[in-house]
């Protein structure tokens, strides 16, 4: 089985899985405990607008996606606060808007847009070396920021109001967290695509939560699970000749529901 590693695209896929899993583990945990799953999904769909714009301008779509995702992450919070609109409604609107912008730019782009499908549903096997480096840099930023702000992020995730009475810059830290979510989402788009991003952001964290009682442990667990899902999913897709992104998500979801069931039974005893 190991002989497949001699192909560069397989090696890149394994590296991608590794890098993305670190991000998934750390940020997925914050997404789950802060209940910002819907916001994160909105960010990922809005990032599609960036991908379209990237094609249109002839840029690497990943850079345009990063810009879009970060702008949306910070913009949603600011819009709902300043204009007094309900946050989940704003997310819903921006979600659709991002997709619409993406589709229009893709249509306006002259010629054939080659791997649009891989952005929608992900293809871990087509990640080029240059994107791997971008992802590695994003990973470093992420790990460093979370390491520095770990205790503040915990306080804000657990009880935002109390953190505010301590005069912490609660809003600033929250926006930093949303920016990190945006970076992670863009990374994951490469692996499982816009439509399936949420599976890798939520399932490893949710499964890990059941077996751990501290935030750090939950992160390690989530990262390990995410790596397991991606590599095992990739292998299964290789055996069955099914799309890799969807296979990864199927596997992760199966584990998620089995764990819930197991947990339920264990509690009854």
């Amino acid at each position, binding site marked *: 089985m190991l002989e497949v590693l001699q192909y560069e695209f397989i090696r890149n896929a394994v590296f991608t899985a590794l890098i993305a899993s670190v991000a998934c583990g750390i940020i997925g945990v914050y997404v789950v405990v802060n209940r910002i799953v819907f916001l994160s999904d909105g960010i990922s769909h809005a990032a599609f607008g960036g991908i379209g714009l990237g094609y249109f301008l002839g840029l690497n779509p990943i850079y345009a996606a990063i810009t879009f995702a970060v702008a949306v992450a910070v913009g949603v919070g600011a819009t709902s606060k300043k204009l007094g609109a309900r946050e989940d409604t704003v997310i819903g609107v921006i979600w659709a808007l991002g997709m619409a912008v993406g589709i229009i730019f893709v249509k306006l782009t002259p010629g054939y847009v080659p791997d649009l499908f891989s952005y929608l549903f992900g293809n871990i096997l087509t990640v080029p070396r240059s994107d791997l480096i971008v992802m590695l840099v994003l990973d470093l930023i992420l790990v460093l920021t979370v390491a520095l702000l770990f205790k503040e992020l915990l306080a804000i995730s657990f009880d935002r109001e109390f953190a*505010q009475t301590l005069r912490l810059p609660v809003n600033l830290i929250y926006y930093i967290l949303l920016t990190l979510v945006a970076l992670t989402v863009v990374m994951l788009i490469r692996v499982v695509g816009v439509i399936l991003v949420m599976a890798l952001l939520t399932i490893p964290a949710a499964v890990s939560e059941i077996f751990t009682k501290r935030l750090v442990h939950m992160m390690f667990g989530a990262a390990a699970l995410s790596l397991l899902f991606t590599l095992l999913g990739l292998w299964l897709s290789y055996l069955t000749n099914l799309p890799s992104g969807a296979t990864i998500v199927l596997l992760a979801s199966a584990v998620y529901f089995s764990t819930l069931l197991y947990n339920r039974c264990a509690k009854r005893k």
Partner: protein
Amino acid sequence: MPNLAVEIEEVSVYFNSKCVLEGINLKVLENDFLGIIGPNGGGKTTLLKVIAGLLKPTKGSVKVYGKPPHKSEKLIGYVPQLNQPDLSFPATVWDVVLTGRLNRSNLIKPYSEADKRAALEALKAVELEGLKDEPIGKLSGGQRQRVFIARALATEPKLLLLDEPTLSVDRRLDTKFWEYLNELKSRMTIIVVTHDISALSKYVDKIACLNKKLYYNESKQITREMWMEAYQCPVDIIAHGLPHRVVEEH
């Protein structure tokens, strides 16, 4: 003359156009132990949030030790009402109490030894040091309430604000809890919002009634007029023996 811990002048709070607090004036002296009672929806939690700096009043001014609450550093220990916390949150009791030590000056730095000592002291004060490594979600409501009190004490506040602290503490611990607060008042000013009028009568120095407006005469007595105004109806109150009388003789 002792220092003024809290000074509230003509404070009104409106949510959209609904008036929640109207023309509140309140002076709390340093080391006072003030109890605030009032009907549900009377604005007790809102007033506490205004003092904690979590809510900007629509009108009027609030000062905590001479400064607006959002500018006073390390002065306020806030114990929020216990409402449906996230029971699966992955943190231990110790993690939660330590967050009380956070402030602007230790941003991005690790907790110091002094922080850990203060957190442990606070946990001992509420007699929960044995549960230090338990996940917060495994605790009973009363225990969790005490963790929140420890978290507030860990900030080493000069003003302790408690919102319905005994709502989920079981009766047996109740008396202990109030006696403990009573000891604390030599070190800090305490404002407590509660329904537990019998405890108030025993331990608190001063009582105010709140129902949109504040009825307060800087004493432990609630006059019949204050009561009628606050609750809008005559209420049967069990007046305990004279030592703890809060309601004037009637």
